[in-house]
C-alpha cells in the first residue's frame, strides 16, 4: 500500500520550479486535450505550483513552432497558427455547418446563457432540433443552468472545446464582444408591450414550427 503524502505540511518538499516546469510540459505534450490547473495539481507531486510553472513554460515557448495556450480554465499546447500550411495532412475535414448552425452558435457564444426561445427571437425563425443537436454533438455547446422563469427553460452555453477550437482564451475574448455590448446589441430587449420573461413562458411547450427551420437549411 502506498502511503500518501500528508495533506498538510508535507514531509516531501515540492520539486524545484524548473522540475515542475518539465512536468507540466510533459503532461501537456502527452494529451491532445486541454488540461486544467486543478488536474495538473493533482498529477504533480504534492506542493507543486503548476500555475507558476505554466507562466514559465508559456514564456519558454514564445515564438516557437508550438505554443502554450490558455483555453478557458485549462491549458494546452498547440502548433503556431502561422505553420498551419505544413499540416495539410493533419487537417480534419469538419462537416460543413449550415448557416443556421453557425448563426445559432454565434448567438449562444455572445448571448450565453441563452434559451432556445431567445435564439429564435434573435434569428426570427424557429431553431430546428437538428441544429442544436449538431452543436451539442460537436461539443461546442452544452446545457447551462435552467432559467428561473416560468417553464424553467434550459439554457445553452459554449464549452471548453469551443474555446479550444477557435483559439479563444475565454468567452470574453470573442471578436467584437465589447463593441456589441456597448451598442446594446447583447441586451435581452423584449418587444414593446411585453414584460421581460413573458416571452419565455411558453418555452417548454411544443414549438408548432419546430421542424420548420429545417426547410431553410441548405
Amino acid at each position, binding site marked *: 500500500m502506498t502511503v500518501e503524502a500528508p495533506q498538510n505540511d508535507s514531509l516531501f518538499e515540492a520539486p524545484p520550479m524548473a522540475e515542475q516546469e518539465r512536468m507540466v510540459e510533459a503532461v501537456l505534450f502527452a494529451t491532445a486535450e486541454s488540461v486544467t490547473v486543478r488536474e495538473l495539481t493533482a498529477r504533480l507531486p504534492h506542493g507543486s505550483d503548476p500555475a507558476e510553472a505554466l507562466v514559465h513554460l508559456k514564456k519558454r515557448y514564445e515564438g516557437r513552432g508550438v505554443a502554450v495556450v490558455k483555453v478557458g480554465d485549462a491549458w494546452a499546447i*498547440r502548433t503556431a497558427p502561422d505553420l498551419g500550411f505544413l499540416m495539410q495532412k493533419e487537417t480534419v475535414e*469538419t462537416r460543413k455547418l449550415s448557416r443556421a448552425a453557425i*448563426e445559432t452558435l454565434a448567438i449562444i457564444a455572445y448571448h450565453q446563457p441563452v434559451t432556445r426561445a431567445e435564439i429564435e427571437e434573435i434569428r426570427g425563425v424557429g431553431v430546428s432540433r437538428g441544429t442544436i443537436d449538431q452543436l451539442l454533438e460537436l461539443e461546442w455547446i452544452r446545457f447551462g443552468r435552467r432559467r428561473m422563469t416560468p417553464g424553467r427553460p434550459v439554457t445553452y452555453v459554449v464549452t471548453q472545446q469551443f474555446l479550444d477550437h477557435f483559439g479563444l482564451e475565454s468567452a470574453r475574448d470573442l471578436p467584437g464582444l465589447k463593441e456589441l455590448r456597448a*451598442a446594446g446589441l447583447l441586451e435581452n*430587449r423584449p418587444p414593446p408591450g411585453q414584460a421581460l420573461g413573458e416571452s419565455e413562458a411558453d418555452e417548454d411547450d411544443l414549438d408548432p414550427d419546430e421542424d420548420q427551420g429545417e426547410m431553410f437549411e441548405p
Partner: protein
Amino acid sequence: MADPFNDQDDAPQGGVEARLAAEALIVDVDGYEGPLDLLLMLSRTQKVDLRKISILQLAEQYLAFIERAKGLRIELAADYLVMAAWLAFLKSRLLLPADPNDDGPSGEELAAHLAFQLERLQAMREAAAKLMARDQLGRDFFARGIPENVERVRKVRYTATILDLMQGYARIRTRDDFRPFVMDREALFTMEQALDRLRGLIGYAGDWTDLMSYLPEGWESDPKKRRSAAAATFAASLELVKAGKIDIRQDEVFAPIHIKKKRDLNDG
C-alpha cells in the same frame, strides 16, 4: 445572393421570362432564414445604415414582396404571412394618428424594436462570420498528434466517523432483545447436567416419583428454562433406563412420567 426585390420594376410580363423569374423567386425564398432575414435583405436596398432605415418603407417593401410571391403562386411558410400581417398593422399604426384610448405600444415603439431586431441579427451575422474566420483547431493550428495514454488508477478511501462507530456499537447492544435464533446459553440445561443430577438424586427416592420433581431449582417457573430442563431430564431418564438403573412409566398419554430406582437384586 440576388435580391429578388430588385427585379420588381421589370416585373414579369409573361412567357418564359415570367416563369424564369418565378423560379428565381422560389429559390430565393428558400434561401431566406425566415421573415426577419428577408427583411434584413430588403433593408439593404435602402442603401442606408440600419439605424437610419425607414421602417415604414421597409414594411411596404416586404408587403409588396409577399404580394408578388402570392401572385406567382409561391407557397410561403406561415411565419412569412404572420410577419406580413404584423407589418400591415405596423404600417397603419405609423400612418394613422395615435388613438388616445389605446394604451398599447405606439407605432414608433414597435418600429424601433423591429429596427433593433434587424440590427441585432445583422450584428450576429457579422459576429458569426468573424468567429468562423478565426484560426481553427484542426485547420490552422493543431493538437498533439500522438497523445500518450494516461493510465487511470482508481483508489478507494473508506471513511467512518467516531459517531458511526458509537452508533454501530449501540445498534448491536440494543439488538440483543431482538435476536430470535441465538442460543441463549443461560437458559440451556444439558443432558449431561441432567444425568449428573438424576444419578445423585435417584438413590433417595424409593417409590415412583414424578420426573418433574427432579428439575433443578430455579428452572421450574421460567417457561424457557423449564422446557430445556424438562427435555434434558427426560432424555437423561431414558439414558438411565437403557443403562438398567431405573424403571419408567406413564399411565396415559400426557400423564405425568414417573421414575423409580431399579431394585438392585443383590440388595435383597
